[in-house]
């Protein structure tokens, strides 16, 4: 099963670190800091996250 694409969803409570989310085909989801190991591995594989939704 191909890993879903992470998407930047906003800032963490510290107001500084980005948070990314992804949802698996079965509905399960994950949300983590961009410093999380799973996300960093995914980035290291050459992937790029989806940008955050445009506000307004």
């Amino acid at each position: 099963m191909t890993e879903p694409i992470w998407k930047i969803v906003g800032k963490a409570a510290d107001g500084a670190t980005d948070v990314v989310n992804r949802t698996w085909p079965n509905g399960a989801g994950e949300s983590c800091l961009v410093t999380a190991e799973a996300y960093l591995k995914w980035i290291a594989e050459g992937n790029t996250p989806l940008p955050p939704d445009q506000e307004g």
Partner: protein
Amino acid sequence: MPNFTAGTSFTDGVTNDVTAAKLNALVADAVPTSSLALASTTGTISNFTASTANITLGTIPTLTAGTTTSTAANITNGTIQTLTSSTATITGGTFSGSINSTTGTIGNLSTTLAGDFTISQGTGTLGTTGATAATYGTTSDIPRITVDAKGRITAASTVTAPVGFRNRIINGDMRIDQRNVGASLTPTASSTYTLDRWSTYASVSSKFSIQQNAGSVTPPSGYKNYLGATSTSSYSVASGNFLGILQRIEGYNVSDLAFGSAGAKTITLSFWVRSSLTGTFGGNLSNSDATRSCPFSYSISSANIWEQKTITIAGDTSGTWLTGNDFGLEILFSLGMGSTYIGGTANTWASAWYGSPSGCVNLVGTNGATLYITGVQLEAGSTATEFERRPYGTELALCQRYLPAFTAISGATGPLPGCATALGTNCVLIFNHPVPARVPGTGVAYSANTHFNFSNNDGNSASTAVSFAASSPNATQISITVASTRGATTTPGWFYANTASAILYVTGCEL
């Protein structure tokens, strides 16, 4: 009664001619040509002085004080009825009769008795049993003895005292599966977490699946669960591949093993294993930066039969071993190892990462092949002790240090612990971890965002998005967007799981 003089002898037919008499000074050459039969029990024979005086088939009724025999005076087949004095002695002779009194003394027996206890010349000797003379047991080891039917200790050794928390492996009996709740998963990448505390190496994607109680076979006696790995194809392992099941042990929990120092302790790994394949299987122990490893192997002789394995390894006196809340020691069961990572000598530490010794089975090479494991215990010492049974709540708490998780209790819906507020459709939940986590989380994972509702006095609304916000070892904050507004001002409320399959857990605390 005439005096018997030298050359006088009894002849046949004159027995019983001497009654109630006393024979004194039976000298060497005054030897009956036949036996001397004593018909009366009232007679007394004393002071045997001759070296060749023999009394056979007779009875010495009372051996009184001062009565002795010479070294060559033999009493055979006779009976000494009463030893009446502690000074009545038989010395140097041969006695094959019985002693009827317990008040007598036998000294300097010349006969060596056969058996486990021998007496020779008055010295008793216990036979050896094979046990080595030593002191067994210390403050940390207890003696283990083997006793035969005669009550003798025939073997003695020591084993590590079975104190609590000797097993460095958490969830070694595979009871706890917070993430997957018994569902199968197929690792698509390394560090895919399976049953609690158990992770995988999967340098190549989707070559095996992991599931608690896969195949639904009967676990070994005393166990309810096992971790099952199933090969999903007949994969030819490439040189750079490494696939396996592993657990990383926190440094705090292995620091006493003193790895990396001269005092490194010997450790013993034990586990139950069952495979559809037979042969030699491999694995390893390693440190956090993969600069030290100890490959090991174990043999499975019968397919689809549970076998218990024990591997004892001397502690590593070299390398860097972390002793804090980082990854202190890793144990790996190989499912497939490429040539790059095969090598070393079994049970010997190497300055490289060898996932297994040479000649081991690659499970992923056979489609449908299975490897089931449970009862994994890693302990100090050279002896595998009985698997440590910890209370379920204790084991769960140990797991929660690495995976703070919240699931619908007993399959029912219910509230999530913590405090929650809402402003419009934006809600915040801060929930306390069941136990302090190893480190702050870096994210959350959940069964589905629609599995959770925010509820307050205005009603409730289903979640449409869940996002991680912040974490400490003690609590995690998440933001949840709900479908309908929960108030124009910040309003307290609560979150609850709206389905029995709801799961929410904190990520980033695992090793």
